């Protein structure tokens, strides 16, 4: 199946500094692709490149088969964006913000009204619809900001850290709606620092680091490839405690063997824990490994990164 968004070997430079360095990824309709990376990794630059806001020094981006460089306007018609920075019009009411955006996106008449009502409903803005956005809390403004991105129901949605500053209930609601939009056929590029959100969304993941794809794949796949389950035994040691972590394939089956191995310290044993790796463990390991690599040392990601980069497609 042809991906709805294809990013193919994209390089972007800001003056002499490379911001994206050969990034490739595919995003299909009906799926969510989580874009992870430290600050400055290139996530926002990638979103800007997809909307044609920064010129590519090499590579190609297509949205719905439209080359972004050749026909920016046609590509933008297919794209809804919630940028990282909160971008709302404070003097307008919540519903005026959303209506303005619907009209600017080309909706009109009854279709526009229905779309606005749906977006208000979806982002639970009913009670806030006639309040000026400048008077709303940061989290409420963020909901208006997201509603503007989805109001025209674009087939491609770029959400750049959409849950920054929102409360847990709103975050859960936003994640639910992102999942629902994907289920309805929207292709969602979801950039975030909250790795648990990506796991909740069941998204495919691309980890960006210093403008390049460091790893890509499903959450389970990445966790399996780049991290390991372990049994952690904690022993009394002098005035403190000592934790010893032992990698295992199946913690339940292998726990007796691990305990047996440390049988001579059984009287000092104070804790047993099973450590199941998360996406966060993978992220930290890969990105810190890359740091070590660039400083001339070996690291756990040294052999993985090239293969991972290929997996970006």
């Amino acid at each position, binding site marked *: 199946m042809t991906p709805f968004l294809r990013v193919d070997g994209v390089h972007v430079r800001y003056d002499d500094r490379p911001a994206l360095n050969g990034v490739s990824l595919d995003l299909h309709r009906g799926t969510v692709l989580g874009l992870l990376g430290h600050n400055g990794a290139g996530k926002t630059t990638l979103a800007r490149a997809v909307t044609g806001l920064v010129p590519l020094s090499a590579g190609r981006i297509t949205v719905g088969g439209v080359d972004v460089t050749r026909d920016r306007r046609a590509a933008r018609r297919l794209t809804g*964006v919630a*940028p990282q920075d909160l*971008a*709302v*019009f404070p*003097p307008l009411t919540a519903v*005026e913000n959303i209506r*303005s955006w619907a*009209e600017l996106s*080309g909706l009109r008449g009854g279709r526009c009204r229905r779309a606005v009502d749906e977006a208000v409903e979806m982002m639970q803005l009913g009670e806030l619809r006639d309040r000026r956005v400048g008077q709303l809390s940061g989290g409420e403004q963020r909901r208006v900001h997201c509603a503007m991105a989805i109001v025209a129901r674009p087939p491609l949605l770029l959400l750049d850290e959409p849950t920054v500053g929102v409360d847990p209930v709103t975050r859960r609601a936003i994640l639910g709606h992102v999942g629902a939009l994907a289920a309805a056929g929207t292709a969602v590029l979801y950039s975030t620092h909250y790795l648990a959100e990506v796991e909740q969304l069941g998204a495919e993941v691309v980890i960006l680091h210093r403008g390049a794809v460091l790893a890509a794949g499903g959450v389970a796949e990445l966790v399996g490839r780049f991290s390991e389950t372990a049994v952690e035994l904690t022993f009394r040691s002098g005035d403190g405690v000592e934790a010893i972590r032992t990698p295992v394939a199946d913690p339940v089956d292998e726990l007796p063997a691990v305990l047996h191995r440390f049988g001579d310290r059984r009287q000092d044993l104070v804790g047993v824990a099973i450590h199941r790796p998360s996406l966060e463990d993978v992220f930290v390991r890969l990105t810190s490994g890359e740091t070590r690599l660039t400083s001339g040392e070996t690291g756990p990601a040294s052999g993985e990164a090239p293969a991972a980069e290929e997996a970006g497609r």
Partner: protein
Amino acid sequence: MSALVAMVRHEWRVQRRELAPVAMLTIMPVVLITVLLPTYENALAQDARGVGAAEHAVPGFAVMFALFLAAHAGMTFFRDHAWHTWMRLRTLPVPASTLVTAKLVVPFLLVLFQLVAVFAVGAALFDLRVRGSLAGLVLVLTVFAACVLALSVLAVAVCRTVVHLAAVTNVGTLVLSGLGGALVPVVLLPGWLQPLAPLTPSYWAMRSLQTVVSDGAGLTGVLPPLGVLGAMTAGVAAVGAVLLRPDRPKEAW
């Protein structure tokens, strides 16, 4: 609804919430005319040019306070950068030229409203008589409103912060008003300054207005000075358009 119309509607929604400066800059010239009309009567009587005080004060203060609105128009650009909405607007399938044009439509109409309002109050309260063509007067006001917007675009193009914009537009307004003959007739300026007056658009705006208001010219008669004003407007707009980089970040301070 075209993108331009949608954007103008959107700008109106935003700018109608910020009409206090426009109201102030419409009321202030009326206040100043009221206060300073006797002074103008004395000054112009001494000059014995036969031009009534209101025939100078009303166009003069209208021109000066319209120029003050250039800052208001320029703020619409800085505002969108401060709200981070400019780059978001740029993700829409709308060319930057359409966004810029649409942002200028509402300020243009506000400047025109301000000019017409000052002249209407001038006629009602200060016995201003327009001896020439009313259509000619409206044409001059329209071209001058466009000139104010062109100056505003140029100011936005060269200023990086709101503070710069305020300084440039305030000082620019006073210089253009003084030198162009909006504050006092050019003949009352120091002799060494008078040759510089025709270099300013405000001078040609005042010349055009006085040609209609005081000299009783019709549409044809006002065309020579108005043509110069139009040419200057086109020139300023062209330079502003070339220098304007709407995506270049603007800062509040």
